[in-house]
């Protein structure tokens, strides 16, 4: 018996390596999104119910909501809350994380608190904040920030533990002092951890902000979603959801990603 091994490759079938360049990738993404809209349209036509409006109905709702500037205004209000709570969470979380990363004693005492906070459901924090501080703006922003702080702290604690002792000694010998050491030695080492915390932070924050608005605010995207929900106005729900998601994605693409690239340009 002879055994034949036959190759299956066809000559000339190998693709050029650079075929999927940036432009091709963008085109592929666009085609994929168009397919999603088409699928949505087909399902909507098949179901034929006001509870699943198709793309034209949602587009009409978008135009209606934008007519009196309600939609852009509410998106701006919500973005303001996202920005405020994001900022508070990053600053407080980073301070806590770095402190815990630098001191083993502090970490032993407060490390378990972080685990408790990490596992506290967002809704519980929101309810407690509204109960304790009233239905105020401060309570809303605190609730979102408290949800995010343990995440940031855990990430930055890892960064602080990994700080280079060698560079620290160098800064000490050459008398950098606390400020120059922070700016030129410590913060650049923490930058990748900041970026990771910021990226997951934005994703988490904007979702929780909507819940906070739904439960205790009288404006913003979350509040509008609740109103539409009570009227079973699914087209408006989808219009707000689409518009807001688009804005957040734009922030990620135009602010976070360029900053991350800039912070890591020294890498080989």
């Amino acid at each position, binding site marked *: 018996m002879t055994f034949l091994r036959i190759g299956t490759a066809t000559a000339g079938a190998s693709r050029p390596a650079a075929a999927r360049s940036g432009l091709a990738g963008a085109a592929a993404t666009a085609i994929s999104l168009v397919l999603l809209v088409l699928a949505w349209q087909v399902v909507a036509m098949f179901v034929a119910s006001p509870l699943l409006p198709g793309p034209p109905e949602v587009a009409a709702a978008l135009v209606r909501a934008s007519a009196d500037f309600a939609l852009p205004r509410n998106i701006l209000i919500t973005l303001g809350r996202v920005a405020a709570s994001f900022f508070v969470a990053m600053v407080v979380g980073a301070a806590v994380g770095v402190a815990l990363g630098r001191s083993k004693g502090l970490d032993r005492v407060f490390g378990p608190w972080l685990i408790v906070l990490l596992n506290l459901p967002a809704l519980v924090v929101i309810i407690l904040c509204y109960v304790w501080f009233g239905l105020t703006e401060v309570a809303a922003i605190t609730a979102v920030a408290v949800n995010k702080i343990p995440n940031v702290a855990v990430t930055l604690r890892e960064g602080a533990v990994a700080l280079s002792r060698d560079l620290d*000694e160098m800064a*000490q*010998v*050459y008398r*950098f002092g606390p400020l*120059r050491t922070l700016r*030129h030695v410590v913060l*650049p080492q923490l*930058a990748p951890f900041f970026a990771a915390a910021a990226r997951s932070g934005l994703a988490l924050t904007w979702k929780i902000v909507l819940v906070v608005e739904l439960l205790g605010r009288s404006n913003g995207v979350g509040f509008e979603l609740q109103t539409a929900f009570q009227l079973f106005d699914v087209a408006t729900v989808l219009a707000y959801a689409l518009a807001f998601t688009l804005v957040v994605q734009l922030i990620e693409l135009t602010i976070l990603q360029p900053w991350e690239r800039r912070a890591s340009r*020294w890498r080989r």
Partner: protein
Amino acid sequence: MTGIVLDIVEKRFPAAAGAPAAPIYRDFRLDVAPFSFLVLLAPSGSGKTTLLNMIAGLDRDFAGRIGFEPAAGGAFGPEGPRIAYAFQNPRLLPWRRVLDNVALPLGGGEAAREAALAMLREVGLEEQAGAYPERLSLGQQRRVALARAFVLDPDVLLMDEPFVSLDEAGAARLRDLLRRLLARRPTTVVFVTHDSREAVELGTRLVRLDGAPARIVADIPVTLSAEDRCSPAMVEALRRQVVGHGSSADRS
């Protein structure tokens, strides 16, 4: 510029897993004359780097004192002598350009950057001023570290095997550069190595340490002229003499 007086009553290595705390220096005294180039030769693991860290003020966990005496008529600033330290690894900030790495010990301002650029010119790295350190070869990174040390115009220069892990030609070029820099900016140098040829080529005084706790087993002045130091035969002759003084275990 500066004399150093080391008077260490006791320095211990902290107890590590399993091993008890062991004294590495006990009643250890060493005077370093101003402007001398002192080379410490010792087997690895005997605490040479620890000694440099103690002089640098990085390690204060010891009994005893380390004094710095300004040159006659001179005085230190309020912060004490200016100390520069060339570590075993270059320890550059990878996220700062070469120029900023050299300028930062001076404060990083415009005047500091100008001084740093002049210094980079001296070590032949002017063209790399705008590059990030990781794009440089190891030899170039070590030259940047030398520039960072000398830009301070230091009173004391500590060097911990700064030319290790370079090929022989690269190390020779760097030793040459170090001699040129020192000719222009004389300072008191404490240089740690385990390479006796390097020690003879550079030093004005060789101190060999051995044992635990470490004792000085040889203390030899080197009186070679600048020309002699460039002659491999002269260096080798003195090196044999020096190795004979110390422990027979030396193979370098």
